[in-house]
């Protein structure tokens, strides 16, 4: 297979390489997001939930998903 059939190149020889490349890039992106430190806002939010300070927020969140 020569590369004068340019249109078919990606279909044949390069395909597994491209698949692997995409898989690698995807994991790089995702893993770098996972490694980000957890912002304080979420620790504070969980503290508030634990202390019952946001008892009614569950309902508020439902409303928030339905902005009018």
């Amino acid at each position, binding site marked *: 297979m020569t590369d004068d059939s*340019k249109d078919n*190149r*990606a279909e044949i020889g*390069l*395909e597994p390489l*491209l*698949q692997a*490349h*995409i*898989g690698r*890039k*995807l*994991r*790089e*992106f*995702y*893993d770098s*997001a*996972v*490694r*980000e430190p*957890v*912002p304080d*806002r*979420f*620790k504070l*939010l*969980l*503290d508030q*939930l*634990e202390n019952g300070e*946001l008892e009614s*927020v*569950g*309902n*508020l*969140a*439902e409303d*928030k*998903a*339905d*902005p009018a």
Partner: protein
Amino acid sequence: MNNSKAHGLKEQLLSEIPSLRAFALSLAGISDRADDLVQDTLVKAWANADSFTYGANMRAWLFTIMRNTFFSQYRKARREVQDVDGEAAARLVAMPDQMSHLDFTDFKAELDLLPADQREALVLIGASGFSYEEAAEICGVAVGTIKSRVNRARRRLIERLALQDEDESAPDVSKA
């Protein structure tokens, strides 16, 4: 919820936040919106803790809440902004001169160009480490649907890579 149960849930949720943020970023694209999505998910999870079966996969449960929240908001937004695809196409035209040979200079931008359902499936399978069966359960669709979405997502990304390869030596017409 008693005190020790609440504390246990809090610790579990805390440990899932990094994964939730990564999945939210995959879904929502922009990091501000992604963190709002994480917040909504945590609040809903807390409010619905009783519906979580002890011993089940908490990450899968949280991802289900998150993606349902995202798609219900997304569908509403899409009705308001009809030209989502046109917008994506405009971004695509503006960017090729920043792309390098057989590489995604900004993989995230390419990922964001995928239809949301394909992007979701690709991330769940290719990055989050879920099986096809688990991903199907999270998304509420058949296993075959997940497989086909993942395949279409990969196909599109491969086409974009091949396109960039061909564009390498071509004159830059994106600014014309």
